[in-house]
């Protein structure tokens, strides 16, 4: 068993009250990904190099403006982990040659959307974990190619409407279990987070920062534009994703998966689905009971296998 470290983040009161990431970014109002990034950047800090694969968040740093206080590098969609390897190597060589003080070392952070993490960049990520690259990987998962108008990705959940899944049953595929795929590589750390649960998020980033090797995080990112809901509901939807059991908060350390927040009485998935326009066809013109119960059953089956 790994030694249980004591987190400095016990409650909301321990979270930072001012934020490091600059305002004025071009993300949509109510962006759930930006919310998570704001929270985790406070903990990662400015001694960091973000390696950003093409996606919504590459728009964070559009010349001549950047919200980052440290460094940032833009890569093609499938190449962020390879970019991170280059940056990590360069830092290591500089330190080795005594051209850089080890105290000035920087955390190398890959930042990609789900299109890259679940799909195009998965091979490069697998290889980086294989090489035990010392980096943090943060995937902001808005369950589709949001930057280009929400076409489906390998992260799109079953039944959701996307720009390329417009039928009455929505997306026919199933959301890929990236957590399990990543964990199967036995990296140092894998966790799921969401900006609507900031204490859980802070503890996980804190833990990841204390480790070396590949540390992988998936942040569910409610997306007002792509999921079609009023931006003010971003946090409410994030919380419901956890309370309905749709988005299990968990972590993988030393071969063990632990759930960090088990919803005691799970709310029905309907509560989560009906707030989002991408599921409106499940409720209008008439309720698609079969599809809703199928979604519910998959959530129930997942939790019936969770021992806690």
């Amino acid at each position, binding site marked *: 068993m790994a030694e249980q470290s004591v987190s400095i983040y016990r409650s909301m009161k321990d979270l930072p009250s001012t934020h490091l990431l600059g305002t004025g970014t071009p993300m949509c*109002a109510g962006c759930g990904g930006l919310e998570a990034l*704001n929270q985790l950047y406070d903990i990662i800090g400015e001694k960091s190099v973000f390696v950003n694969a093409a996606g919504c968040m590459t728009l*964070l740093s559009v010349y*001549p403006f950047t919200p980052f206080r440290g460094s940032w590098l833009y890569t093609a969609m499938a190449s962020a982990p390879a970019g991170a390897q280059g940056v990590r190597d360069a830092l290591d060589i500089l330190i080795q040659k005594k051209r850089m003080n080890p105290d000035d070392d920087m955390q190398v952070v890959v930042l990609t959307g789900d299109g890259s993490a679940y799909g195009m960049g998965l091979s490069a990520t697998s290889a980086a974990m294989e090489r035990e690259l010392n980096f943090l990987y943060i995937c902001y998962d808005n369950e589709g190619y949001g930057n280009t108008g929400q076409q489906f990705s390998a992260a799109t959940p079953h039944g959701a409407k996307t720009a390329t899944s417009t039928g009455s049953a929505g997306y026919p595929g199933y959301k890929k279990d990236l957590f399990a795929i990543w964990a199967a590589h036995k990296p140092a750390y894998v966790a799921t987070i969401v900006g609507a649960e900031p204490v859980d998020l802070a503890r996980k980033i804190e833990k990841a920062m204390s480790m070396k090797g590949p540390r992988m995080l998936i942040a569910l990112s409610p997306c007002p*534009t792509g999921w079609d809901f009023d931006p003010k509901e971003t946090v409410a939807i994030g919380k419901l994703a956890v309370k309905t059991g749709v988005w299990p908060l968990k972590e993988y350390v030393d071969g063990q998966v632990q759930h960090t927040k088990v919803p005691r009485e799970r709310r029905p998935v309907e509560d989560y689905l009906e707030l989002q326009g991408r599921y409106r066809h499940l409720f209008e013109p008439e309720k698609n009971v079969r599809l809703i119960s199928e979604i519910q059953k998959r959530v129930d089956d997942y939790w019936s296998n969770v021992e806690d």
Partner: protein
Amino acid sequence: MYRIRFHGRGGQGMITASRILGSAFFLEGYEVQDAPRYGAERRGAPIFAYVRADDQPIYERGVIAQPDLVVVADDSLIPVPAAGVLAGVDDHTVLLINSDESIETWKQRLNLCCKVFTLPAQAEERAELRFMGATCTGAAARLLGAVSRDNLARAIRDELAEMADAIVEKNLAMALDAYDRMQQYAGSVTTKTQTGAGDYRKPAWIDLPFEDARISAPDIHASANSTEVRTGLWRTLRPVIDYERCNQCWWVCSTFCPDGAIKVIERTPEIDYDHCKGCMVCVVQCPPHAIEAVPEQTAQLQDAEQGASS
């Protein structure tokens, strides 16, 4: 050739509005060109759409610099330089503004000699904003005088075919109502012959030599300078804190703000209106409900009044 320029904010349906108008022109037998333009910015940020329609093939490309008709879905965009609402507007241009203020007010305020029409149909609810595009298209179609009521309706049904019936009907009702309201101004829009390519005179360009990559690469040597971008201009609703009800928990609004636009000084939260995009997450999440959503226009008027009295 008709040259029509649409201005709106991302999320207000102006791209769809331009598509509907383009389709309606096409159904009337016109050659049509229809192109939206987005920047790097998102929902709430200024967006543009261009429609050209002619009875001959259209060889003109790119942005419309000298519009015959300018349609403005959101009057708060007019003073925003980045929106460029008044760019290339001259005496022949017709301006259609979605605004509760009078035509005279706009003419005086903007010192305009051109024709101005207003649509006093400001949506009270943000959910209603998505229908603004349809209203604008309906009014624009009538002002142009080149699109029949039937073809407008058909274009709406074609373009919105994938939407739920109730949504299509709502859009239709809004568009046709606006079309009917503009009856007496039908055909107000006139076209203007513009300089052809043959008569084009090259501006006095300044040649810039190529620089070394180390100099010319778009590196940003600054820290968190995105604060120079005033995303507060995107806002249609403003969150206002009632400090008497604020229980100074400080962490909830500040932690959940997606933009990090709420900072807390000595347990008192302060909203940075230069950057708050108006998502209203704080309004929903504040435990004692001490934050209220106020329409941005109302809030600006109150600011102006307070400024005048103090």
